[in-house]
C-alpha cells in the first residue's frame, strides 16, 4: 500500500466507541484471530478485519468512513465467537456503518433496500408477482401476506429525516 503518513489520534476510536456496537473497540489487542477466522478475508485480499480495527484505533477516520470494507462484513460473527478479548469486529463495523451513514457514505444496495422497507414495510413488494401467488396457492399457503406499511412511516421520520436518497 502507499505509504502516505498519518498522525495518530484516538478521536475516531472514541467516536466509534460511543456508537452502538462500537463500545468494545479499545479492547482489541490485534492478535489477528478475527482475520484468521473470517470467511470474507479468506476470499478477498483487501479485507482484513484486524487491520481495519487498528486503522480505526489510530484514527484514520476519512479513509475508514469512505471505504467499502466495513460494508463487506457478513456478520457471521465467527470472529465474535473466537475473539479472546470479547471484541466483536462485526458489531464494530456496524458502528462504523452507522457513523458513515450519518455522513452519507452508504453503498447503494443498502440505501436502496432501506428505501424499499421504509416505503412498503418490507423488501420484496415488487418481487411478489402473481406467479408466486399461484405458487403459494398450490402449496396451500395464504396469498395475502398482510404486511404493515404504516409503522415504517413513523420510523422514517424519526430516524431517517425523510429518507436516505442523497
Amino acid at each position, binding site marked *: *500500500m502507499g*505509504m*502516505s*503518513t*498519518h*498522525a*495518530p*489520534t*484516538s478521536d475516531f*476510536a*472514541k467516536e466509534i*466507541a460511543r456508537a452502538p456496537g462500537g463500545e468494545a473497540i*479499545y*479492547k*482489541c*489487542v*490485534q492478535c489477528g484471530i478475527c482475520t484468521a477466522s473470517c470467511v470474507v478475508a479468506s476470499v478477498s485480499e483487501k479485507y482484513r478485519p*484486524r*487491520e481495519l480495527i*487498528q*486503522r480505526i*484505533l*489510530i*484514527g*484514520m477516520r476519512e479513509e475508514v468512513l469512505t471505504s467499502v470494507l466495513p460494508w463487506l462484513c457478513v456478520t457471521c460473527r465467527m470472529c465474535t465467537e473466537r475473539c479472546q*478479548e470479547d471484541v466483536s469486529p462485526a458489531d464494530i463495523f456496524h458502528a462504523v456503518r452507522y457513523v458513515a451513514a450519518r455522513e452519507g457514505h452508504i453503498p447503494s444496495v443498502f440505501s436502496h433496500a432501506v428505501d424499499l422497507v421504509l416505503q412498503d414495510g418490507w423488501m420484496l413488494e415488487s418481487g411478489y408477482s402473481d406467479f408466486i401467488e399461484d405458487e403459494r396457492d398450490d402449496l396451500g399457503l395464504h396469498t395475502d401476506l398482510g404486511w404493515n406499511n404504516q409503522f415504517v412511516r413513523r420510523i422514517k421520520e424519526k430516524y431517517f429525516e425523510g429518507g436516505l436518497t442523497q
Partner: protein
Amino acid sequence: MSQEEAPRIGVFVCHCGHNIAGVVDVEKVAKLASSLPHVVYTTHEMFMCADAGQQLIRSMVAEHALNRVVIASCSPRMHEPTFRKAVEEAGLNRYLFEQVNLREHVSWCHMREPEAATEKAIDLVRMSVARAAHLESLPIETVKVTPMALVVGAGITGLRAALDIADRGFEVLLVEKSPQLGGHVAKWTHLFPTGESGAELLAPLIRRVKSHTRIQIMRNSEVVEFEGFIGNFKATVQDRKDGVQREFDVGTAIIATGFESFKPFGYYSYGESPDIVTLAELQEMPPRPELLRPSNSQPVNTMAFIGCVGSREPSKKGHEHCSRHCCFATAKAASDLKDGLEEIVMLYKSLRTYGKHHEDIHRLAREKHVIYSRFPADEIPIVEVVDDKIRIEWTDILANKRLIFQPDMLVLASAMVAPSDTETVAKMFGLTRSSDGFFSPEHIKLAPLTTHVAGIMIAGTSQAAKNAVESSIDASGAAAKAAVLMARGEVEIESTLSEVNPELCSLCHTCITSCPYGAIGIDESRDPPVACVTKAKCHGCGTCAAACASGAIIMKHSTDNQIGAMLEAYLCPVQETM
C-alpha cells in the same frame, strides 16, 4: 580402611535414560570395564541418581566388599554430591568415589558419532578406574558459621532480606552506598501500581529495619574488601565521607546491589531535548496535579512512550536481555497519566504484561484510549528534535501505515542494566556474571539465589532484571539460604587441598606468588622457614602444585600418581597398572 588393602573397584555405568545410552553403547562400556585391573563388579543402570541406583551402590559395596566406586554418568557438577552421599551411606570415605562424565563430555557433544563416542567413553572409564585404584580417604573438614549476615544494598531487596534474617534471630550488617534507604523504589514519586508513592510503600519496612536491634545499618558506606570462606568471611566497610574503615566478621553475605537505569544516549535523540526522558526519570519527577514539560514548564498534552530502549538488542553485550518490568510500568504510567492528557501513543516492539494483574493495567490503558502501535524490530522509529519540537516517525505494522507523531514529551522505557561497578563487586566477592551483566546464580533453574561461592547469595535485580515484587520474594528466599547456614552453625568444606612437604620445600616463593587466593604463607616457626597452606583459604585449584619446582606440594585427590595412572591407562591400555 587401610590404604594398603588391595583395591576392589565397582564400576556403575548410567544410561541417564536416553541421554547417554542413546549415543554410547553402555553395555559395551560396562563389559569392558569388568576386564580392567581391580574391577570386581560392573553394571549398567537406567538412572544411577535415582533412589534405586543409590540403593544398588549401597548393596553392591556390601555384597562385593568394594572399597572404590567408579560411576560413569553425568557431570560431577550435577551428581557428585548425590553419589558421595551414597558411598558414605555404604560406609566408604567420599573421596574413594570417582565420577566419569559420559554425558556432557561424551554423549551430548558427540551425538552424531556413536562409535567414536563409545570409544571415548571406554577410554575415560579405563582412566578413571586406574585413578580409582590410587584414591585415598581424606578427613572431612568442617568450619563454624559466624551467626551474622552481611547484606549489601538497602533497596527493597536488601531491606526485606535484612529484616527476615534479623527476625529469624541472627545479626545483620546492612551496608548502603547512598545516604538513604529504599533504593530505586523509594525514589518513585508516583505511578506506583498501588497508587501510593514508593516512599510511602516502603515506609513500614524501613521503620522496622531501623528499629530492629539485630540490624546494624551503615549508610554512605561500601564494602571495600571481602575475604575468607563460607561461615568465616571478613568484610571491610568504608565510610564514603570520612574514609574510615571497619572490619566485620560475617558468616554469610547477600548481594543486593540492584540495577542501574540505562541512560540511552545515542537512542531516539535522548539528551537532545529536556522533554525526552527515561521511564525512571519520569517516575522520579515531582508529583503534581498536572504533568509539566521539563523544557518550559508548560502542561503536557501529548506524550509518547517507546519500549525496549537498550533492551533486547542481539549481540550487544549487556543489552541482549529483556528488562522485564517496562511493559507493565509503561502501561501503568500511561493509564495513570491519560486522564490528564489528550493523547498517549505507546510504541512497542512486543508486549510483555506477563504478571499477575498486569493484563488488567494493560487493558485499562487501552480502555483509556492509549494508542498502542507496534513497530518492526528491524525498523525502529526515527526521533528528531527540530526547533525544540519532538518528531517521531515510524511504521505501524498493525495498520501497515507510516505514522508521524509530535508529542510534548517522549518517555523512553530504557533498560535495567547492571550497575557500572558490578565488575568490582564481582571480583571482590568472587562472583561470576552472565551475559546480561548481572551476577550468575549457582543454577539458573533450581538454585537462582545461591552462587558458586558458598555462603554468598544474590537477590533481586543484582541477579537479573525484575520488578519490585519479584525482588522482594528473592530477598526472603536468599535470607532463607543464609539462615540455613547460620542455623546449622557449621558446614563442611572440601578436603581436596594442597599440602606442603616441608622436607622438600626450598621456600622459592613460586607457590606463594602463583596462588590466586593468597592461601599460601610462610611458616616461620620452622627452621628453615617453609611455605604453608591456610586450609580454609585454599580452593584446591592445584596451581601451586603445578608450579612447585621441587615437587614439594601435594595436591590431595589429584596426586601425581593418581594423574600419572590415568595418563598411563590412556596411553598404554594393554599394560597392567601396578
